[in-house]
């Protein structure tokens, strides 16, 4: 086998060195009766040329060429080529978790930079080294808020990504957590009146998403203020990270009352491929005072004993390998390489192009929604300002976007349409034309 260096000759020498005559003897610890007495029933081994053929054939069976205008948490943004060139270096992608700081400074510094970028973008004080994805990120944020508040009731907007809410349900179910939904208003945003009504003193935290699942931009600062007034924590989920390039971040406001306590989200939009759903990269940012309640790894600045400065994994007493069942989370392996992609993405686009990209998303989405309104008989729902998605009510099946009936049966035949900067006007026009037909 080409991935196994030792040949028969090597093996014989090693067996002799050990003082046994066959490899089988080394398995003496496994009781005979538990041994498999046949070969596994697997496809016959393929050579490299055959593997290439196998996977190219399967890849060709996914039709990804044509824009489908689907977003819903996974966005097709342009990915600068240098990202793949850099993360393809063995130094990055084949290294382990940087527990041995002296020979992992590259990874450590990059994660520190990721943490800083996320803090800057969300307007928060600190961010962690990544979580599995946005969905588990929201779940972790809820567990974190439970630890901080010692309260167990959570209000979650119905316009938070339905799969995220499903994951929250799975995580929360056995931890005495009670979840209540907040409905959306006619404009597609959180219904502030209902929120006000539901925000009782026993509410640990309120979770909203902005831009929300319908693409609408929430008034997260007003929400944070309201929640804080009621003694709860404010958790904001950002599924479409590009929006942070132009929208006022949940963590930024002159008044601490109006800022979120935890901003959690999905960083896939920052240079990570859709890849049929993963791997992507969750992030979680918070206030400095909650650091010791954070889930996941953290990299901090450090010095060696001679005073030279560098980086190291720190505050690991929160983590499972030290605290075991008392850890803030069970997470171990995280999404480091995707965090690196996001870091390189942010370094490459910088604040200006990030804002321009965000603008193009807004303008193209606005254009698409207006064109559909103007030129088709379909209704674009929810008037609230949008980032790069909107809901359109169609008659019959919509050949674009995500049908919403599975998640929001009350919306009937609606579809969630996403328009990013990668959609060319001619693609949008073609969609409008087809919808008009």
């Amino acid at each position: 086998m080409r991935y196994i260096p030792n040949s028969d000759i090597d093996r014989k020498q090693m067996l002799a060195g050990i003082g046994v005559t066959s490899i089988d003897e080394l398995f003496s610890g496994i009781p005979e009766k538990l041994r498999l007495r046949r070969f596994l029933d697997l496809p016959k081994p393929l050579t490299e040329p055959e593997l290439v053929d196998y996977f190219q054939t399967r890849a060709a069976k996914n039709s990804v060429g044509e824009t489908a205008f689907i977003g819903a948490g996974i966005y097709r943004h342009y990915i600068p080529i240098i990202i793949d060139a850099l993360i393809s270096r063995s130094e990055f992608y084949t290294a382990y978790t940087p527990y041995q700081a002296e020979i992992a400074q590259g990874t450590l510094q990059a994660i520190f930079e990721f943490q800083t970028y996320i803090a800057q973008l969300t307007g928060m004080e600190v961010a962690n080294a990544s979580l599995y994805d946005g969905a588990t990120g929201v779940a972790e944020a809820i567990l974190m808020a439970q630890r901080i508040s010692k309260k167990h009731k959570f209000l979650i907007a119905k316009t938070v990504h339905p799969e995220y809410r499903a994951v929250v349900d799975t995580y929360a179910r056995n931890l005495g957590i009670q979840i209540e939904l907040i409905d959306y208003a006619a404009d597609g945003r959180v219904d502030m009146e209902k929120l006000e009504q539901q925000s009782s003193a026993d509410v640990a935290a309120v979770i909203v998403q902005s831009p929300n699942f319908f693409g609408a931009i929430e008034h997260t600062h007003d929400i944070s203020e309201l929640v804080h007034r009621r003694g709860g924590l404010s958790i904001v989920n950002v599924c479409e990270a590009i929006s942070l390039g132009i929208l006022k971040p949940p963590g930024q406001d002159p008044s601490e009352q109006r800022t979120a306590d935890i901003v959690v989200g999905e960083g896939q939009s920052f240079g990570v491929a859709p890849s049929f759903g993963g791997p992507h990269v969750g992030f979680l940012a918070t206030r400095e005072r909650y650091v010791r309640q954070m889930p996941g790894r953290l990299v901090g600045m450090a010095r060696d004993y001679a005073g030279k400065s560098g980086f190291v994994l720190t505050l690991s007493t929160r983590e499972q390998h030290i605290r075991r069942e008392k850890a803030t989370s069970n997470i171990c392996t995280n999404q480091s390489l995707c965090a690196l992609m996001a870091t390189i993405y942010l370094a490459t686009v910088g604040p200006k192009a990030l804002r321009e990209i965000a603008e193009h998303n807004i303008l193209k989405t606005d254009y698409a929604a207006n064109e559909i309104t103007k030129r088709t008989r379909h209704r674009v729902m929810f008037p609230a300002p949008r980032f790069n998605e909107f809901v359109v009510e169609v008659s019959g099946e919509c050949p674009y976007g995500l049908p919403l009936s599975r998640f929001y049966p009350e919306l009937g035949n609606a579809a969630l349409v996403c328009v990013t900067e990668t959609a060319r006007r001619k693609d949008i026009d073609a969609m409008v034309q087809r919808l008009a037909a």
Partner: protein
Amino acid sequence: MTGSARTSNHFSLNEPVIFEEGSPGRRGFDLPELDVPARALNDIIEPGLIRDGITGMPELSEVDVVRHFIRLSTWNYHIDLGLYPLGSCTMKYNPKINERMARLEGFALAHPYLPSERIQGALEIQKTLETCLAEISGMDAVTLQPAAGAHGELTGILMIRAYHESRGNPRKKILIPDSAHGTNPASAAISGYIVETVPSNKRGTVDLDRLAELVNKDVAAIMITNPNTLGVFESDIAKVAELLHSQGALVYMDGANLNAMMGITRPGDFGVDVLHINLHKTFTTPHGGGGPGSGPVAVKEILEPYLPYPVIGQNSQSDYFFDNDRPQSIGKIKAYNGHFGMHVRALCYILANGAEGLKEVSEIAVLNANYIREKLKKAYALAYESPTLHEVVFSDRLQARKDVHVWDIGKRLIDYGFHPPTVSFPLIVPGAIMIEPTETESKQELDSFIDAMLTIAKEAEENPEIVKTAPHTTRIGRIDEAAAARRPVLRWRPD
């Protein structure tokens, strides 16, 4: 002497954090011109929702970015450089073809919400991988949804809980051997269970008698690692399973060490009801400097109804589809259906090997580990005498007499051009040195490692100071971790 025959000193470039670089006006990316009518943003979005700017975010050219990350990269040790003998981590060579295949456009750009007729290729890949993993582990059904090992544990325990709940009582406790990885108790805890520790006997395996005392109707399951974290096969595993099953409890296996047994023995054949598999260990998906991984969970039929949804169905025309109609499912554990990019890589590896290849993998992994064991067992104290499979655990007992500890030995190995083994784990071995070479190391590389270890043992006797102050050949010396944790600086700020 501070270096070794394996290494030479060479300069490497320094590099500040990225926020100290660049200069206003630099650009690393240009956007195609807007091809729809430009409207004033304020006409679309309330001005109050627009941010001012992003304080501290640097402006860089493409060249600046490339140089920055290239320089950083050169500070890392990695699997393509040499042996990475982290016990329990299975740091094996990551075949280059895996990376290429995962990047095929048809995979990289696929969206899970596309209509199923547009994603048949991706679904076939996932289904095929499930089938292979079921066969390798001897189980009946597989979910690919969990993001990593710990996530798989959570998934598995939640399924156990759902199983018990369906029988009217979720039960209270999960039993976990004292040699277990930290994620095991952590995952059990988030699943709402109390953790009870099962002690190991002097062979390093689960103490059956003590276990018998602990098992009762409050116990939902045992979480057992096999071979365990000492590299020792739980030879009483069948009895363990019987014991649990006799009380209606289930057996969860931490499959982190599957690399020791492929084609040799199967969890499904020795009583395991559910296990997770780390694709980033056994199945060569890269570790990525900490992730992403992938932690599929394989189950016996009794647990199948509880799998997270979607499962991949096949209709009468043999077309694949995501089946979300799973009333007994524990729900979703992650958005979408797992780390597909890792699934492609793992399947690529399995197909490259086939049944004989995977068996050879395990055989040589065990051969390599035992070769190290044999060559080092005089110089380092074996933690347990039991036969070990794919990894071997020593203690620093002999070296500790000179106040040289496991951490020192690991750091000194760096000077000899090696990544240190896993240190101080498993917790039941004081000063544990846990070595897992994997099958992708050559005899030459192992011999060179053995030489280094023997030299260090000698240094520990003759010149302990050089070991205790190691490493001496790295761009930064040993870090003061306590100081870093005392006043954590977790982000860059302008001075």
